[in-house]
């Protein structure tokens, strides 16, 4: 068990750091989506840049995909490892008396978010990859907004999208502030970090939902 690579704390740090990285990405994604509310042209421009910039496409995008996979695999290893540390369960446990539901069920919210990501990839990423790197279709800087709007026509899709973001919000409510604790910063007494992380965990996912609902109403 020697060495940083195997210790329980190494797992903790890697969950925290990969989580913080994904939080940063989420903020960037939100900013771009938010632009779609007030400027179709600007949204197209930014999306075109993100979709064609070599650094974004071939350096940042693979890092992001690795980050998502790493965070999930590590979370799964943690969960399985932790289950093994108590092979005989209690006859009765009262988890709600000492901890929040979400802090005890991060694997559950994580799986919901991962399923959403699979749908999101199916909706946006695979068609995009096919468009650019398989069909080698011509560059069209004006197609992004229409493509995006098209995905928010179905009420079932918007509902699924919204439910996933509610789970993301719950996941962040525990995960974001918890990553500071894991990195050695106890935020109980640093209230501004606690407020900031909680505000982020609510505002960003619900912001995503509002954007989806906005486009849904606009397209009907």
């Amino acid at each position, binding site marked *: *068990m*020697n060495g*940083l690579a*195997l*210790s*329980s*704390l190494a*797992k*903790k*740090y890697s969950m925290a750091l990969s989580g913080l990285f994904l939080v940063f990405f989420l903020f960037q994604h939100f900013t771009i989506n938010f632009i779609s509310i007030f400027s179709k042209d600007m949204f197209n421009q930014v999306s075109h840049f993100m979709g064609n910039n070599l650094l974004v496409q071939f350096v940042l995008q693979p890092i992001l995909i690795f980050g998502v996979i790493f965070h999930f695999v590590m979370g799964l290893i*943690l969960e399985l*490892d*932790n289950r*093994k*540390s*108590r*092979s*005989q*369960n*209690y*006859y*009765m*446990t*009262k*988890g709600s*008396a*000492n*901890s*929040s539901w979400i*802090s*005890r069920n*991060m694997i559950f919210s994580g799986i919901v978010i991962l399923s959403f990501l699979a749908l999101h990839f199916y909706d946006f990423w695979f068609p995009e990859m096919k468009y650019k790197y398989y069909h080698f279709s011509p560059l069209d800087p004006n197609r992004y907004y229409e493509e995006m709007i098209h995905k928010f026509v179905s009420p079932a899709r918007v509902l699924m999208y919204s439910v996933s973001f509610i789970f993301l919000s719950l996941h962040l409510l*525990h995960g974001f502030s*918890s990553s500071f*604790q*894991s*990195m*050695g*910063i*106890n935020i*109980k*007494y640093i209230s501004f970090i606690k407020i900031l992380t909680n505000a982020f965990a609510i505002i960003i996912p619900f912001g995503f939902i509002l954007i989806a609902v906005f486009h849904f109403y606009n397209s009907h």
Partner: protein
Amino acid sequence: MNLILKIWRQPNSKSKGKMVTYPVENVSPDMSFLEMIDMLNEKIILKGEDPVAFDHDCREGICGMCSMFINGQAHGPDRLVTTCQLHMRKFRDGDTIIVEPFRANAFPVIKDLIVDRSSFDRIQQAGGFISINTSGNTQDANAIPIEKDDADKAFDAATCIGCGACVASCKNASAMLFVSAKVSQYSLLPQGKVEATDRVLNMVNQMDEEGFGNCTNTGACEVECPKGISLENIARLNREFLISKVKT
């Protein structure tokens, strides 16, 4: 008060245990939980049966022996108390009370409610000490100035009684709160700083080797700890481990 107790009975570490139901009558609300179990045991002994085995020693919240998981919580429903400090007035007449041993693979059941917590001793032996000869030539404590805040925090950490409620309550059976209290109690003081790097590395390694789970910051340990050991200690442990790893 008349109560129904459902207690985990397991003759030894090898056998399979089960929940056994016992009615108890005329329980005084002023009794401690352990006194109520004593009363039950007297009846069991009179019947010629094997009494319920449970750990206890000081019966005043000092030794940390009285490990019981009562109605789904370590040391029962009250806050900041051990089982010996839990009073029967916390329950109502007619209640059914579930009593189980602390559960974690690193705390194997020896008999009934008694678990083997020697894994904590081994963690402590891995680094929970300062290597100073105390045979008559120790420096006067007041000769080393220590900031009040640090002294208070070290003292708070030192109140950990090694009961294991943190492990029992944690969904991951993690021992982080215990280890962090032991690490903090020394590393906050100048006498403990000398061995701080080795201490944190060795204690965490031992903790992992004992088979405790990984901490996921649920905070259940802090809530259930009878001594109110703060999560701030776990943050300190995380910090010190990282710094020590980088240093070595």
